[in-house]
């Protein structure tokens, strides 16, 4: 075979592939558009039935509509697809009725079975559905999938437990995170915090218990979430964590939480942190927390912190002083006039304060 023949074959092959791919793309686009149109038509038929059902089920005469919904088999739109969009928007009894329809269609049972699928996509969709439906019978499946080898499936399981939202789901989540299995297939803290925040007060007991967990990650999560949820009985436990926990992230989370809870009993621990703590982020968080509590006893240590060597601490301490009102602002003005460390932070915070409150700055910068 000559070079020319090889080149000719290659050029022809290129041409054929270019034409075939262009045509396939066009065909794909046409099919997608046709499918989208049919999808809209089916939704337009199904949506009113669903709305009528939700509006009339309380009167007890929606059996026919329920039967229609249970028997519905769409071509492009599955009933589950429509419900998945609606469920997060519904609350209370309407939501329960819709979940009941799903149960009677066998969808919940299918989803539970789906969590055992070999395909990650199926496990993912199944646990997402269990979460969207918020059914407690999904807790064992979702908890099991926390140890799934696929990261997306694990994250979907965390979200599902948050949406199911019971004390059992919270306990399962935290216990799993504190187990050895969680080391093999780690779960990031952020989705866990959101799941626990969604569960809310039902998660309180498990959170307080887990402040003593072995895992640093679990203790950090618990500290942060307890602060956001405003669990006052956790204050003493959080103070202990702020004082003695060997992990920086736990001490940081505890300082954040103590600030959010704003209990005067935390002032001693927080001011002690200003003296003994070495991590800049933690010292800054302690300053912010003291600003939230605004106890006069913390004024002198905060003034000292305005002269800290690290700018993050200086600014946090200066901002904390603003929370003390005129007393704090007067101290900031004094510091701002000095050329010593802390003058820069005081000037920044005073300028920001005067711009935010539309008042004339009492210093020049």
């Amino acid at each position, binding site marked *: 075979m000559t070079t020319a023949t090889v080149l000719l074959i290659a050029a022809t092959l290129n041409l054929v592939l270019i034409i075939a791919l262009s045509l396939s793309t066009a065909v794909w686009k046409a099919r997608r558009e046709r499918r989208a149109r049919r999808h809209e038509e089916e939704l337009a038929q199904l949506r009113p039935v669903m709305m009528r059902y939700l509006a009339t089920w309380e009167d007890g005469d929606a059996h026919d509509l329920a039967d229609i919904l249970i028997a519905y088999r769409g071509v492009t739109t599955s009933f589950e697809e429509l419900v998945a969009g609606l469920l997060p928007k519904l609350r209370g009894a309407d939501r329960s009725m819709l979940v009941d329809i799903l149960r009677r269609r066998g969808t919940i049972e299918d989803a539970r079975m789906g969590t055992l699928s070999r395909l990650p*996509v199926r496990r993912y969709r199944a646990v997402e559905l269990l979460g969207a439906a918020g059914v407690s019978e999904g807790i064992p499946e979702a908890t099991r999938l926390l140890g799934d080898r696929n*990261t997306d*499936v694990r994250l979907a399981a965390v979200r599902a437990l948050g949406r199911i939202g019971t004390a059992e789901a919270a306990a399962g989540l935290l216990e799993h995170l504190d187990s050895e299995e969680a080391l093999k297939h780690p779960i*990031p803290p*952020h989705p866990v915090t959101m799941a626990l*925040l969604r569960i809310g007060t039902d998660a309180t007991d498990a959170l307080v218990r887990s402040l003593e967990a072995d895992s640093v990650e679990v203790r950090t999560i618990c500290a942060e979430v307890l602060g956001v949820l405003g669990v006052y009985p956790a204050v003493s436990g959080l103070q202990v964590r702020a004082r003695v926990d060997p992990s920086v992230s736990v001490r940081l989370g505890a300082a954040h939480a103590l600030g959010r809870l704003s209990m005067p009993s935390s002032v001693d621990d927080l001011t002690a942190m200003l003296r003994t703590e070495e991590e800049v982020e933690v010292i800054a968080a302690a300053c912010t927390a003291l600003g939230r509590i605004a106890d006069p006893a913390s004024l002198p240590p905060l003034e000292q912190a305005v002269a800290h060597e690290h700018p*993050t601490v200086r600014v946090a301490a200066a901002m904390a002083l603003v929370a003390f009102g005129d007393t704090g602002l007067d101290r900031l003005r004094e510091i701002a006039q000095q050329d010593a460390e802390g003058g820069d932070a005081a000037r920044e915070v005073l300028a920001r304060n005067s711009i*935010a409150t539309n008042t004339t700055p009492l210093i020049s910068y």
Partner: protein
Amino acid sequence: MRDFLESAVIGFNSFVIIYFLALNSLYLVIVLIAARAQRRAQRMSSETALEDLFANPLTPGVSVLVPAYNEEPSIVSSVHSILDLRYPQLEVVIVDDGSTDGTFDVLQQEFELQASTRVAAGVVETVGTVNSVHISRDGQIVVIRKENARRRGDALNVALEYSRYPLVCMIDADSVLEKDALMHVVRPFVDDPERVAASGGAIRPINGCPTERGMILEKRLPKAWAPRIQVVEYLRSFLLGRVGWSAFNGLMIISGAFGLFRRDLVQQIGGMTADSLAEDADLVNGLHYRLRKEKQDYRIVFVPHPVCWTEVPENLKILSRQRRRWSHGLLEVLWRFRAMIANPRYGRMGMLVLPYYLVFELLTPIVEILGLICLPMGLAFGILNWQAAVLYALVAIGYGILLSVVAIAVDDVSYKTYRRWKDLGILLVAAFLENFGFRQLHAFWRLRGLWSGIRGSNAAWGEMPRVGFKDTSGAATN
């Protein structure tokens, strides 16, 4: 002598064909890896995850850093586009890098800025002196006015010094962002906080899209062919190419138009290299270099969602300047990180990614221009016949077109960005036209950039004259 010349010309032409076959085949593999990764991501995408990210009070804050030099036409639009982003906690730090136009005036007027002061972190070295600091009433916008140091990297370093949140997002002053852009690029950080060091967003050309207050109303293709061809280029190289590289943690470039980084890591490597022409690639490679050297388990991620729209040059003069700068910048980066090339200590970056960029990106214009010279030479001296010359050209060009068509097909199936049939047709025609004139000019510009890099000539970041967005609100965007 003639025999020698004949075998040299034929030999070189064969080399050129093999080189382009290898280049396009490698790229085809990368695009196919990207398509697979994209399909998987789409099947397991979750709106709930984004909602949770937004609702969570513990979501990390983001400082958006915007270096601006003579950006009067588009800066207000861009800042509005940032402020309208759906994200719970963000600040915008704009550095007016000695603009000679009304960049600061329009910002001051629109956002009622007032003179203030701010403590710098004092971690990263900067060059240009800071003249003043201005903030908005709610403190969300900070504008730093500084002397121009003729380097974008220096403007970004100043912005980094004055930023406060743990994540920093670097964007161009003319970028327009999708509403959920930040949520998409932050998500990898919260899903894998221990390992993710940086994430980049997909960039698309905005020319031709009608906008209002920094929001895109409809995604359309540009009217002129030069930017249309750039749309195809962006699809092939900046979207699918990067998704492919990212799939095996080999992302070498996160575009300066939209990238998110961990602030502490950027500070640890000393910020941006102020005198680099490719400060975005320089930063990413700096992170690879340090993290691999320290044997850390890390990831640099590319998010394929269309999150950022930016204006591409419409006229060839500006395009030529941009491409020369890119080529010069690539040479700088490869030179700066030469210790990584072919060094197994740096894993895939050293053994695969950087060698690829050296052989198939940096040196391509040399091979292409020599190929373009050899072909007519062969014809003129009767060494090649017309039939062979045409076949050589057809194979090289045809494979290039095929690659572009694959990219267009993957984009249409995965992202469905352009809805109109006409747009699909235009993209296919642009993929064809790219190879007749544009590609050769592009090679020439890159060669000039390479040459200026070798000579070490001094090129600065400067203004790119904007055509301006098509703002349907009637606001002056140009």
